[in-house]
């Protein structure tokens, strides 16, 4: 069984894992809306910038993005200014995971907005609403229910992908148990890790199911 030190180490690793996933999903959702609106915009610059953003962050490995932020940027900074500059690994992880999830969530949000019947925008405009009013009051609120399932997906992926941060000097859940396993020569630690991952993803799955039901209340037909 685990001794107290090990228990706390696993707890700390779990906290790091959860923290990164939560920060990334929240910031990703916020900036994802902006990038999605950029993709839908008729403004060519906004459109091109968002297209390029998604192209880059979806098209390169998350691990590479993590390395760029944690390793490459300090070196570039040192070369160009002659000063040293270190990124706190936790901050580096927050940034990399948020930038990455922004790209994925932007595409999810864009698709959800486009799935809303164009008659909704027309009706809003015919009632005198501006594009902005129609988007914020009519179209985007209708996307919430459709967003829950894919955002839940992204959240679960993020939670598991946080194991990549072991490469930038962070002891997340997986790295913590791996260290224990190799020092004791005991595989049981991996079972603990699997149980914790499953416990966390179960919470997400159940919570998102509930949210989806709640948001879909207006779609229920009949008596």
């Amino acid at each position: 069984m685990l001794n107290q030190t090990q228990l706390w180490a696993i707890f700390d690793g779990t906290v790091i894992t959860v923290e990164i996933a939560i920060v990334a999903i929240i910031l990703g959702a916020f900036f994802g809306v902006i990038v999605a609106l950029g993709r839908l915009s008729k403004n060519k610059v906004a459109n091109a910038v968002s297209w390029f953003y998604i192209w880059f962050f979806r098209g390169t490995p998350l691990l590479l993005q993590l390395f760029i932020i944690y390793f490459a940027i300090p070196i570039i900074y040192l070369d160009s200014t002659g000063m040293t500059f270190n990124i706190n690994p936790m901050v580096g992880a927050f940034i990399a995971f948020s930038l990455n999830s922004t790209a994925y969530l932007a595409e999810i949000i864009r698709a959800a907005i486009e799935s809303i019947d164009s008659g909704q925008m027309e009706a809003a405009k015919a009632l005198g609403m501006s594009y902005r009013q129609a988007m914020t009051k009519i179209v985007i609120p209708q996307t919430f229910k459709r967003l829950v399932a894919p955002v839940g997906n992204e959240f679960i992926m993020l939670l598991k992908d946080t194991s990549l941060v072991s490469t930038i000097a962070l002891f997340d859940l997986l790295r913590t148990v791996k260290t224990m396993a190799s020092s004791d020569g005991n595989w049981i630690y991996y079972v603990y890790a699997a149980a914790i991952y499953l416990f966390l993803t179960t919470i997400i799955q159940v919570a998102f199911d509930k949210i989806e039901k709640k948001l879909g209340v207006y779609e229920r037909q009949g008596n």
Partner: protein
Amino acid sequence: MSMVKLVNVRKSFGNLEVLKGVDLEIQPGEVVCIIGASGSGKSTMLRCLNHLERITDGEIYIEDELADKRENNKDLMKIDPVKVQTLCTDLGMVFQNFNLFPHLSVIDNVTIAPIIVKKADKNEIEKIALDLLKEVGLSDKKDEYPSRLSGGQQQRVAIARALAMDPKIMMFDEPTSALDPELVGEVLGTMRHLAEKGMTMIIVTHEIGFAREVADRVIFMDQGVICEQGTPEDVILNPKEERTKSFLNKIL
């Protein structure tokens, strides 16, 4: 004064010219029914009036104010979008597919535009909305979501929603075409009631009997132009144009 005036309006989608020079003037209180085969440009004309589509050529006046003027798809006026928006709120529109906002209750569907566009007081507009719902016979459904209403009820809510903006003209784009036959009557009844109250109305419809009964003027459109217009007796009972005759023969 005219409520709406179109001067030589043309509209193309790519190479397809849908409106080929339409002139039309509608007087206050007039009920105009537009009939014609699908693809004749009836709906497009309505949609051009409230800028859901932008015209390619011609001029549009709303209450004698220039609302759009274009030549070869060039905007000659550069009218301030806010002003366009204000002019368009004088035009209420009812769609074939209702287009109610599914995430809002019936009462919120009716009050949302006055609240966010006209900054109306919430309590005041709710009172007005309730009166409007009563008028269309749906005050008992005010807290339901649209998905729980029949098509006919949804369309009546859509009419109340448009009226809540206090429009001077109501436009109906085939308001009964998506309805089950037994639900058509209730919607036409609501529209008839509106016409009797003196509302200026432009109605694109296939309900020839209704047009005959309520219209002050019937317009027959064909291939992007107004082919024939006049009183319902003239156009529906005694059409002069061959194209009008053959259209009426097909649908009656």
